[in-house]
C-alpha cells in the first residue's frame, strides 16, 4: 500500500523582519493565486490544514500558511530570552509583508482569523494596493475584553492548559469533538507568554475604531465572516465594523465559533468556497501606480 501523504509541503524560509533575522516555517499546497493564511493568537498554521488539503481550493489557489515568529515551528529570533514577547500592529504587519515579499508573491490574497482578521483590517487600511483581496475571519475594529490576560503566563497556572480552557468556550457546541480538541491542542502547545504577547496587539495596540472608515474596497475587495458562537469577536462587533466600510461583504456563519477553519472544517468550507470563487473571478489587474 502506498504511503498516505497529505498534499501540503513544509519548508523553512530565511528572511528579515524589521531588520531582525528570522527563520519561518510555512506549509503550502496548490497553484494559482497566492492565498496567505494567518492563524489565531497563540496557535499556528496547522489550523489551516483542511484548507491546504482541499483540492477545490488548491486547483485555483496557491495556499500558504506560515507560523508567526514565536509560534509553531517558527522559533523566536536570537536573543529572545532577553525580551518579553509583544506583538504590535507594526511588527505583525511587517511580518506579513516580509513573508509575501520574500516569496515574491504577486498581489496575494490574505485570509486571517481573530488577530489575523484584525491585522487584515489593518492591511486594508494601510496597504490595500498590495493585495488582490482580503478575508477577515472573526474580525472587528475593536472587541470588549472578557478576561484578564495576566492569567495566561504565571508560574502557578499551567499556561497551555489555561489558554486552551479559556478559548474552549469560543468553539461552537456543534463542532465535531475531534476538531474541537485538535484546535485546543495547538493552544496547549504554545510557548510561555506567547498567547498573552499576541493579545497585546489585540487589546492594547490594535484598536482600529477610528480607522476602518478609511478602507476603500474599490482598491481591494474585503470579506468579513464571523461565527455566531464567537463571543470574543461577536457578530455584532463584525456587523458594526462592516457598517463603516462601503462595499464590504459580510456574513455571519451559523453553528460556528471563533476557529471556523479548524473547529468545523466542513462547515467552514460551505462558507469560504463561494468567497474564494468570487475572488478567483476578480479581474487580474496590475498593481496601481503609486502617486
Amino acid at each position, binding site marked *: 500500500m502506498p504511503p498516505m501523504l497529505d498534499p501540503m509541503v513544509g519548508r523553512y524560509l530565511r528572511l528579515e523582519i524589521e531588520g531582525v533575522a528570522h527563520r519561518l516555517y510555512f506549509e503550502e499546497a496548490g497553484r494559482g493565486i497566492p492565498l496567505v493564511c494567518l492563524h489565531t493568537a497563540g496557535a499556528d498554521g496547522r489550523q489551516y490544514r483542511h484548507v491546504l488539503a482541499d483540492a477545490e481550493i488548491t486547483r485555483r489557489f496557491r495556499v500558504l500558511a506560515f507560523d508567526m515568529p514565536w509560534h509553531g515551528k517558527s522559533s523566536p529570533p536570537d536573543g529572545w530570552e532577553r525580551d518579553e514577547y509583544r506583538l504590535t500592529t507594526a511588527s505583525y504587519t511587517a511580518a506579513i509583508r516580509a513573508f509575501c515579499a520574500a516569496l515574491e508573491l504577486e498581489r496575494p490574497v490574505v485570509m486571517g482569523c481573530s488577530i489575523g482578521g484584525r491585522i487584515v483590517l489593518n492591511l486594508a487600511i494601510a496597504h490595500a494596493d498590495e493585495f488582490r483581496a482580503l478575508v477577515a475571519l472573526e474580525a472587528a475594529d475593536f472587541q*470588549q475584553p*472578557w*478576561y484578564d490576560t495576566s*492569567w495566561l503566563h504565571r508560574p*502557578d*497556572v*499551567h499556561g497551555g*492548559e*489555561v489558554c*486552551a*480552557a*479559556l478559548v*474552549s*468556550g*469560543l468553539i*461552537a*457546541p*456543534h463542532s465535531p469533538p475531534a476538531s474541537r480538541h485538535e484546535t485546543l491542542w495547538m493552544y496547549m502547545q504554545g510557548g510561555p507568554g506567547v498567547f498573552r504577547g499576541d493579545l497585546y496587539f489585540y487589546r492594547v495596540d490594535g484598536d482600529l475604531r477610528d480607522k476602518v472608515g478609511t478602507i476603500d474596497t474599490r482598491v481591494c475587495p474585503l470579506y468579513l465572516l464571523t461565527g*455566531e*458562537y464567537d*463571543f470574543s469577536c*461577536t*457578530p455584532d462587533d463584525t456587523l458594526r465594523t462592516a457598517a463603516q466600510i462601503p462595499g464590504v461583504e459580510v456574513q455571519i456563519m451559523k453553528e460556528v465559533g471563533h476557529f471556523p477553519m479548524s473547529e468545523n472544517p466542513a462547515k467552514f468550507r460551505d462558507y469560504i468556497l463561494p468567497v474564494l470563487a468570487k475572488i478567483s473571478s476578480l479581474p487580474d489587474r496590475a498593481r496601481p501606480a503609486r502617486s
Partner: protein
Amino acid sequence: MTPADRFAHLPSLLAADTELRRRGRWVDVDCRIDVGAEPFHLTIRQGELTELERGPRLMRAIAFSIHATDEAWQRHWRKLPEPGWHDLFALTKRGVASIEGDLRPLLQNLQYFKDLLALPRRLPEGH
C-alpha cells in the same frame, strides 16, 4: 424543576463521569455556586464531589464563588445552548454571571470546572 433542582443532581452526574474525575484528580477546593438565589457549597477532593450542601451556610470559608442568574443557568444547560449562553465566560461577559474570590484554583483547573458546571446538560430536557 427549577435550575437549582437540576444542579442538585451534580453528585450523580459527576459520579457517572469517570473521565472528568480523572482529569480533576488534582482538584482540592471548597467553593460556592449560586444558582439564582440558591447557594450550593461544593467540597471537592481529588476531583470527587465529597459534599454538595444546598442552602446558606454561616461563615463557610470558600476559595471562590460563581454566581449566575436562574435564566443564565437554564439557558447554559440546554443540550445545544444558544450563542452567548454556551460558556461560563460568555455569561460573565454579558453580565448574567460573576466570579469572585481566589481565582487561582479555578484557573488552574479551568476546563474541569467548566465541564463540571455544564454537567446538568446531560439531564433530560425539561428535567
